[in-house]
């Protein structure tokens, strides 16, 4: 009797006929083994083959790890500026199943306000279960899974990693997982720009980059100082905001741009038929205009010594002012758009 299922049936396994056993089965098996021995001088380089050597001579020879491979979490920082992508949002700490991630939020030493950066970031590698949840939930694409697996050590405590040991440049992750990074690169950098704006001094710089960034900033400040009036050259890195003349020019440009944006927004989509949203276009236009205005202002200011070129972290002060103006203009345009929508 055979039982029939909807799609398939029950098969009673054939145990083979009872026959004289004089070793023919063993010989058959030996033939298979010999076949494999003969083939064992070839490399099994294809999944469709069953015979050949498929082992590799580790550590001289290594198999290329797939991009998705995950071992231990690492933190990313930007190669050039040294800014960490992490903003200490605590998502990874919350999701971690064995609870091995510990974060300290950075605070402004003067005001005590929280800054979007981690003061200290510790992961206990020895208890990490490599599940990859931290990398999955990270909204800033800061925490990623490393491919490095040779982590053995004689001292157990060495596996408690601090921020300096966890930080890797973005270029490192880009190398081990190019397509994964390409997917998130744009948004990750956009978010980084936002958090960099709210960081002060050296907070948020990867520990191994601190010296380099310090030197870079000092060099920039020096070159600025020699270029313009040395007496008024600012030494504080955040001096861009406090420099009055550039600021004024930028503000002016921003106001102009905002007005222009408002005008454009008032016209609506009629004047810009190719853009899906007129306001958006206007904002962009305003930003460009503001940038131009700022540039002009900066150019005219360069001649006279009364304008103090600032922003040591930017290669050129004008650039910084222009960027600032553009951002302000964009904000103004956004506001104008919001107002228009509300009315």
């Amino acid at each position, binding site marked *: 009797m055979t*039982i029939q*299922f*909807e*799609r*398939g*049936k*029950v*098969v*009673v*396994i*054939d*145990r*083979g006929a009872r026959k004289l*056993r004089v*070793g*023919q*089965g*063993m010989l*058959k*098996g030996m*033939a*298979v*083994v010999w076949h494999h021995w003969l083939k064992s001088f070839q490399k099994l380089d*294809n*999944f*469709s*083959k*069953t015979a050949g050597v*498929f082992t590799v001579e580790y550590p001289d020879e290594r198999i290329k*790890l*797939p*991009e*998705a*491979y*995950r071992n231990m979490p690492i933190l990313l920082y930007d190669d050039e500026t040294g800014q960490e992508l992490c903003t200490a949002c605590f998502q990874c700490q919350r*999701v*971690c*199943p064995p609870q091995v991630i510990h974060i300290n939020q950075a605070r402004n030493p003067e005001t005590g306000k929280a800054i979007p950066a981690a003061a200290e970031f510790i992961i206990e590698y020895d208890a990490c*279960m*490599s*599940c*990859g*949840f931290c990398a*999955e939930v990270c909204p800033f694409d800061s925490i990623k*899974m490393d491919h490095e697996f040779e982590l053995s050590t004689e001292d157990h405590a060495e596996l408690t990693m601090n921020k300096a040991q966890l930080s890797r440049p973005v270029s490192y992750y880009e190398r081990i997982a190019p397509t994964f990074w390409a997917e998130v690169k744009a948004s990750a950098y956009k978010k980084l720009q936002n958090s960099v704006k709210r960081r002060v001094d050296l907070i948020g710089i990867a520990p191994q980059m601190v010296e380099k960034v310090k030197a870079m900033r000092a060099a920039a400040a020096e070159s600025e100082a020699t270029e313009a009036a040395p007496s008024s050259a600012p030494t504080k890195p955040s001096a861009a905001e406090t420099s009055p003349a550039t600021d004024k020019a930028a503000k002016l440009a921003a106001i102009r741009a905002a007005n222009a944006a408002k005008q454009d927004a008032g016209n609506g989509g009629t004047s810009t038929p190719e853009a899906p949203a007129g306001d958006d276009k206007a904002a962009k236009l305003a930003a460009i205009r503001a940038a131009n205005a700022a540039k002009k202002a900066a150019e005219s200011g360069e001649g006279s010594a009364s304008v103090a070129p600032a922003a040591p972290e930017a290669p050129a002060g004008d650039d910084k002012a222009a960027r600032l103006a553009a951002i302000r203009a964009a904000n103004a345009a956004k506001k104008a758009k919001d107002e228009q929508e509300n009315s």
Partner: protein
Amino acid sequence: MIKTEELQINIGPQHPSTHGVFRMLVTVDGETIVDLVPVFGYLHRNHEQIAEVNTYLQNMPYTDRLDYFNSMANNQAYAMVVEKLVGIEVPERAEYLRVLMVELTRILNHAGALGFLINDMGAWQTPLAFGMREREKILDLFEMASGARMMCNYFRFGGVVRDLPPAFMPLLKDLLVALPAFFDEFERLLCENEILLQRSEGVGVLPKDLAISYSVTGPVLRASGIPYDIRKAEPYSIYDRFDFDVPVGSVGDVYDRFLVRVEEMRQSLRIIEQVLEQLPDAEGDHINPKAKQNVRPPVGDAYARIESPKGELGFYLVSDGSEKPYRYKVRAPSFINLTPLGDMCRGYKVADVVVILGSIDIVMGEVDR
């Protein structure tokens, strides 16, 4: 008449043939087993209690560590029970990916289990290497898709964590060429081998009625002649869309368990081939975009079960409406299949115990939890 004396000996807990830390308290009369009591609990890790202090999502990687040979199957059972509890829909494509992964898991589990069984019989390493070679290829595919070879953590509520990478399909198609050749080769290598027949035929017989009363499941139950497969008895996921047969044994000895597993690998291959045919037409993404991973199920309970390579794997969850399960229970096939070990071994020789234990195919991580 020679007067004999019974002797109690321990096999394990530290013994290479016990597949982990597992002790068998054996009463022998000469070479014959009079009684055998399985003693487990040496690998107890408090799995169920840990799960009750974790959130629902955080338990997913812990299920990998139950039966570390079949992390994909464990993932599926757990994902299914949470989806049942919360009411999450799974897109069609995700279901196909799940079935693909679980059937690959079944092949790798059986390839490994049979290799270890032959190892227990004394054919040291060579047949095991045959099984391990194919297992290795499947693990490479798992690594490509999920990021890890054994602790895959690939399933999420409402789908799987990411779609297959572009390099996956060509390798899988190559593998599907190799697998039938491997099955044939494996059968030629072993199925008629006189030593294997001598060691396995008529050894460790588990009669039908005993198997049912011990609630044994999986290949062990089917080898005893009962065609019970949850994929057929209560089709879950999309198993009602595939043609496949259920192999059963006729005697219920170690040899039947061996042959049933070989045939099950072939049936799994059939399913994978059908998955590949139907996958391109499958609708939806690899995960339900509306499914939240940070779930808070309504008050209630749910039980979901799958036909894992070792038997019926079930998860029972009770929710009190918070983000953590109130109660979390695993119905582990290895554990329940191990309980009739005493009855299976009684009357056989000491050397047979190791083979019978190997034929049940246990993983201590799942037995003790």
